[in-house]
């Protein structure tokens, strides 16, 4: 398991995404799987930087990842107070369809094989199997 600590900065997040994608490529993951991991990482890192750390440059995001031939496991942890995923409104409900925000979590669930949070809600666990 590799650990990276990055500042609350989207450019650093993007570089980290590229590192993980190179690992997927090295292990022969499909384009579909890579698309899913890139999407989930971008959503998770955006949430950590923007909502968790509120772009506070004194706070960091800790990302751990392990890519094997079988699966990719990624955790993203911020220094925020955490949240309860069940409190996030369903973005596909008719009344929310035209709201500009709130789709990141549902997209992570749609594209990854497993998505769950720690009790505090400041750390997301992501798994994508190499099928």
């Amino acid at each position, binding site marked *: 398991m590799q650990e990276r600590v990055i500042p609350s900065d989207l450019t650093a997040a993007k570089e980290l995404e590229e590192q993980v994608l190179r690992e997927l490529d090295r292990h022969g993951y499909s384009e579909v799987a890579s698309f899913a991991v890139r999407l989930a990482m971008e959503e998770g890192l955006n949430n950590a930087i923007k909502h968790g750390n509120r772009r506070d440059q004194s706070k960091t995001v800790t990302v751990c990842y392990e890519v094997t031939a079988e699966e990719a496991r990624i955790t993203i942890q911020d220094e925020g107070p955490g949240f309860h995923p069940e409190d996030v409104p369903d973005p596909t409900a008719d009344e929310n369809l*035209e709201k500009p925000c709130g789709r990141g979590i*549902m997209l992570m669930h749609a594209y990854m094989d497993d998505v769950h949070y720690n009790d505090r809600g400041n750390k997301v666990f992501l798994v994508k199997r190499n099928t």
Partner: protein
Amino acid sequence: MREEAPRLNVTVENDITVVELADRKILDEISISQIGEKLNALVAEAERPKLVLDFANVSHMSSSALGMLITLHKRIREKKGHLRLCNIQPAIYEVFVITRLNEIFQISESRHQALDSLT
């Protein structure tokens, strides 16, 4: 590190503005706000905007881009204009379907079809 602003190819056909992302395959969080600003400026200067967004070069996008498109769509409708999306690759189209935004946006298979629907 500041990234170079994304380049948009903007052409006007009759009264329809066609915007194509020129060199950025990834609609990520960093570039999306810059692209949103440029698109909103195009809408602001039109009396009744007719805008076609060509996604031919876009191979990845996330929820930030969807948010930008929703805001853009609202501004266009406020001016009684029209927005069409076209040339969306299957993987990207799936994102629209999962989020049900294919029900909000009018999506054409090709630029030609998008232009036809606005004339």
